């Protein structure tokens, strides 16, 4: 089994994912559970398709978490992060502290020495970022109160890993040679390096990345941009590891720094598939690494510990949720999403074994417990969804939906040239939030200098529309100047975001017909409005009074727009088109003759009735 080629391995993992995830989704179980079960099936206790090398694959796959946090950071402008400081420090801090102490107390009750108990408590206080965030995200709950709280706690845990790594060696039962794990540097020097790297990320992200992105984007080669996005994430992860920090934390900071950047949506679109694949791989390896041997040997011990772990964590989380005034429905969601051991536990347990803090026999059991608790989370979330949430349903759920709408912008404008700009400025003047996508780096640069927030990207790409928030937005304004591309975007949006109302700029009549036939109901021909205005100017110079000229133009517009809709359906048959358009022109003339305030001589006579003619009855 060990000398299989890379391709065969990849084939097994991919096949497992492709088979299991759709089934699990179909059954309403979510992708995480699908991956985990697929992992069990291909693992040593299933079909034995993957074996020992699972460990290495898992280390590789943990990189998915790093990317996940980068993407989370991208969604989180510094100002929003600052607003979350209370939940991060308060909830996160209390969660780690309370859970660690409770578990340590339980462990001492079970007969462990206090040093070991404390180490176990600290390690098990971590929850799984991958499972927690991915499950919430998949259900579209990431932006609810529960989602934000879960995120805050997970972020704190990420930070807490650093002091925990430093603390563990102090709890050793015998002196260990750590062989280079953890920097053996002078702590002062290390602190300086940490600060240096974080400062580097912030300054670099603010000032250096923009020109680099621009140069790369100007090549118009998508894969180069993707390569650069990956390079950025991997580079930061490496640098963080050099100074002994969590790579996830570093990329998170980088994400936050880049959250205001105009290339943000493009970055999101490029990294997201890698994140998804790697996280999937991670779940697969967790599934494959679950030691059913141990479960069969000592079923009650393992099951008892899993239940104890999950309920201890759940208890702490629920207490915190209520303490921080979350609604009950949100508290439960928050609790179930985080009531499991985390991926950090795997790393920390192996570190603790090497550092002679915990004996191998103990960590083997605990690793299995953590893995089982991960397997349990999706099931608990489903139970919560089906049986607990319905009891707390409704009134405040609706308010949450509103919340989502205001935090994201309800309008996406694709193309911010002469046309899109006017639309956008009008909306902004009305304090409506907009997300703008444009494809020309030069144009974006110019707009940025005028203080506009514009994102680089091709609105014809599904992932970019997604990243720009098409799933939450209400309107899509297609204002680009390429008619074929506009049709493409329209078709794409209609297919994947049927809830979006589409407003399209039509280049000319022919383009308008095509858009109408695509089912777009709101179409403006780009030159029609201004041409009409000029028509009014001309009429006025010919001596027509302003109000009348204005009314003529409005009648003309109405007639022409109705004709446009009609002609769109018969275009193609030339004779018919010509005949019909002649008729329409004739109709219009009639209409304009008849229009206006009908004042005529016998009209006036009607007012000059001396005697009541019995018309009125009252």
């Amino acid at each position: 089994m060990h000398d299989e080629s890379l391709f065969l391995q990849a084939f097994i993992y991919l096949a497992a994912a492709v088979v299991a995830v759709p089934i699990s989704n179909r059954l309403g179980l979510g992708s995480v559970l699908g991956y985990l079960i697929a992992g069990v099936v291909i693992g040593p206790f299933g079909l034995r398709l993957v074996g020992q090398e699972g460990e290495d694959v898992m280390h590789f796959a943990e990189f998915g978490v790093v990317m996940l946090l980068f993407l989370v950071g991208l969604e989180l402008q510094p100002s929003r992060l600052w607003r979350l400081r209370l939940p991060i420090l308060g909830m996160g801090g209390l969660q780690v502290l309370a859970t660690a102490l409770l578990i340590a107390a339980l462990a001492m009750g079970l007969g462990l020495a206090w040093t070991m108990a404390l180490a176990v408590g600290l390690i098990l206080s971590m929850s799984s970022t991958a499972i927690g965030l991915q499950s919430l995200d998949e259900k579209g709950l990431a932006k609810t109160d529960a989602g934000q709280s879960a995120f805050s706690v997970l972020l704190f845990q990420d930070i807490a890993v650093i002091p925990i790594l430093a603390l563990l060696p102090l709890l050793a039962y015998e002196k260990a040679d750590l062989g280079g794990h953890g920097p053996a540097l002078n702590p002062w020097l290390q602190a300086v390096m940490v600060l240096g790297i974080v400062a580097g990320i912030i300054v670099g992200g603010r000032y250096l990345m923009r020109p680099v992105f621009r140069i790369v984007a100007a090549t118009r080669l998508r894969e180069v941009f993707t390569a650069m996005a990956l390079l950025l994430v991997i580079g930061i992860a490496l640098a963080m590891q050099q100074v002994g920090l969590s790579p996830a934390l570093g990329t998170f900071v980088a994400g936050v720094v880049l959250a205001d950047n105009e290339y943000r949506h493009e970055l999101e679109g490029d990294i997201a598939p890698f994140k998804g694949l790697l996280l999937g791989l991670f779940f697969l390896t967790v599934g494959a690494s679950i030691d059913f041997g141990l479960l069969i040997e000592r079923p009650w011990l393992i099951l008892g510990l899993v239940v104890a772990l999950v309920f201890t964590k759940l208890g702490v989380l629920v207490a915190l949720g209520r303490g921080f005034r979350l609604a009950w429905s949100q508290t439960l969601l928050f609790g179930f999403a985080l009531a499991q051991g985390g991926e950090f536990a795997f790393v920390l347990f192996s570190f603790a074994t090497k550092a002679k803090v915990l004996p191998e026999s103990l960590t083997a059991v605990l690793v299995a417990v953590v893995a089982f608790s991960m397997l349990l989370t999706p099931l608990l979330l489903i139970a919560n969804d089906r049986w607990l949430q319905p009891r707390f349903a409704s009134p405040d759920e609706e308010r949450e939906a509103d919340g989502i709408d205001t935090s994201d912008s309800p309008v996406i404008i694709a193309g911010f040239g002469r046309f899109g700009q006017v639309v956008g400025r009008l909306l902004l003047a009305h304090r409506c939030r907009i997300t703008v996508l444009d494809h020309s780096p030069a144009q974006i640069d110019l707009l940025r200098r005028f203080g506009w927030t514009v994102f680089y990207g091709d609105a014809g790409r599904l992932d970019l529309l997604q990243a720009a928030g098409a799933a939450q937005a209400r309107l899509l304004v297609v204002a680009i100047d390429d008619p074929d591309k506009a049709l493409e975007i329209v078709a794409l949006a209609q297919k994947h975001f049927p809830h979006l109302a589409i407003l399209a700029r039509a280049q000319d009549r022919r383009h308008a017909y095509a858009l109408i036939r695509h089912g777009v109901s709101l179409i403006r021909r780009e030159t029609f409005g201004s041409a009409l205005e000029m028509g009014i100017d001309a009429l006025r110079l010919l001596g027509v009074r302003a109000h009348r000229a204005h009314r003529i133009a409005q009648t003309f517009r109405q007639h022409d727009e109705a004709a446009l809709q009609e002609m769109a359906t018969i275009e193609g048959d030339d004779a018919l088109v010509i005949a019909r358009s002649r008729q329409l022109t004739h109709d219009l003339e009639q209409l304009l003759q008849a229009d206006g305030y009908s004042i005529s001589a016998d009209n006036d006579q009607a007012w000059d009735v001396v005697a009541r003619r019995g018309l009125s009855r009252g």
Partner: protein
Amino acid sequence: MDNANRILVLFAHPALHKSWVNRRLIRAIGDLEHVTLHDLYEAYPSFHIDVKREQALLLAHDVIVFQHPFYWYSSPAILKEWQDLVLEHGFAYGAGGTALAGKKFLSAITTGGQQQAYSRSGANRFAIRELLAPFEQTARLCGMDWLPPFVIHGTHLLREAGQIDPYVRSYRLLLMGLRDDTVRWDGLSEGEYLYHNLERVLGPSPVTDHA
């Protein structure tokens, strides 16, 4: 319900987002059967009124309601424009202009001023019925039955839903009464509003449809 009267509510409010009273009124009648709510500022944002369409609407209804806030002792501008354009000679009045004859006309208005202000001794010096004379005479010239108006006074004192609700309920009841022809006209005396004594005026409804 087959011989129910069909009611057309021509509604004019140029700043509905700031409205307290009218917004609630229209919300309360939107779902009534045989009642067509026609929001003029929404239909014609640039005052370009489609005369043919409006005339067709008039023909298709039996009761015409002008619902609007009282602006400068009259209606908001679009309703005036509507009258100037839609009530054409030969359609609404004059030779052959009998399209509206026999229909009922109701003014449903809200005023900032309180009722006491609308009297000889009050700040507004004229009673509402006097000020509504142009509407009354317009209706009569077109051969319509002019109904006593539905008036909500002192809107600035109505800032809570609880205070507005009784009026909203009355308005709904009134439209239902007009629709089902259960209004007893002889119960009304000269100078009264249709809001007052609604219980007395509305006979037992043949269709029990409670708001």
